[in-house]
């Protein structure tokens, strides 16, 4: 139940961001700094989420099959594979590595 509250709040705030764009004066668009922060934050958050999901196990760092998933996904992306293929390759790599004993 607790999660529902934060989830719905996240939904409200997401819509608020979108809506704000349509109501602020257009002159704000001329200031490149806000747009720049929105961009660098997008890169930083996605990089952070990638690495957390790869090496974090709660409060400790671990090297396990997920590292293999990261490598395989990177190869798929270099080969310009579409999003869904990259995801399947990541899952396949992790599952396969577990099957041969690397957790």
């Amino acid at each position, binding site marked *: 139940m607790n*999660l*529902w509250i*934060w*989830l719905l709040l*996240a*939904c409200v*705030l*997401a819509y608020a*961001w*979108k*809506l704000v*764009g*349509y109501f602020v004066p*257009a002159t704000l*668009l*001329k*200031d*490149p*700094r*806000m*747009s*720049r*922060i*929105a*961009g*660098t*934050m*997008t890169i*930083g*958050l*996605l*990089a*952070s*989420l990638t*690495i*957390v*999901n790869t*090496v*974090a196990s*709660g*409060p400790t*760092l671990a090297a396990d*099959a*997920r590292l*293999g*998933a990261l490598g*395989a*996904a990177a190869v798929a*992306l270099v080969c310009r594979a*579409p*999003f*869904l293929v*990259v*995801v*399947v390759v*990541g*899952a*396949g*790599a*992790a599952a396969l590595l577990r099957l041969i004993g690397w957790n």
Partner: protein
Amino acid sequence: MGLEPTETGTKAVKLLQSPAVRVGLSISIATGLYGVSFGALSVTSGLDFWQTMALSLLLFSGGSQFAFIGVVAGGGSGIAAMSAATLLGMRNGIYGMQLNALLHPTGWRRYVAAQVTIDESTATSSGQTDPDEQRRGFWTAGIGIYILWNLFTAVGALAGSGLGDPKQWGLDGAAVAAFLALLWPRLKGREPAAIAVVCALATVLAVPFVPAGVPILIAAVVAALIGWFSHGRSDEGLEPDVDPYDTHHGGRDKNRDTHRDLHGEGHGQAGKAGT
């Protein structure tokens, strides 16, 4: 009266001849399809079916939705998940400003337009030069993705809940791959790659010392500080996950340039940012 069906028929044919509508439809299918991976990962990271659907129906922004479930899957709190999703949603505000300047929606359309303001609908619209085409591109991609994204989220959520042990299927690896795939198109050039590396390092250093979920927020602060103090491209990181003008269109470079110009309105002034 008897003529009406033919008239609507010709209208539909004409609409399909619009390049923006075509691009909008193909981007809808490409983006909508990966809603399957969101749905499946969401239920295996501990959200139930309706929580998963609420994210796709109400939050409706791929990166933020993945961020929310990514924090929850890592054992982070609800408030950390909400914060990560909200910080990642800031760019939609920038898109809203750009689209408002392009399309000038009025009345109730503004509120609907806001909900479907995401990377892909913005990119489809701003890749066109004719105002009518910009409008058609935005609405086709926005509404098309909304419908298909939700449909495929439901499919993924239903399939995912029957999977048993998610680790056996490598679904934690799928999450890693999904985040990397979201990050990838934004790493054009040396600077964004450097930002990504610095933020990844900050995350790894923070993991042992703070509660789960918080390292991601620390990385967000680091990234915001870099954005505040450095003077790079003002449209950096504002690329769509799936580029509508990449594979579907021959004139990629031409379209890409238009896209850049619109995104980088402040380009010439970037150097004056501090004044």
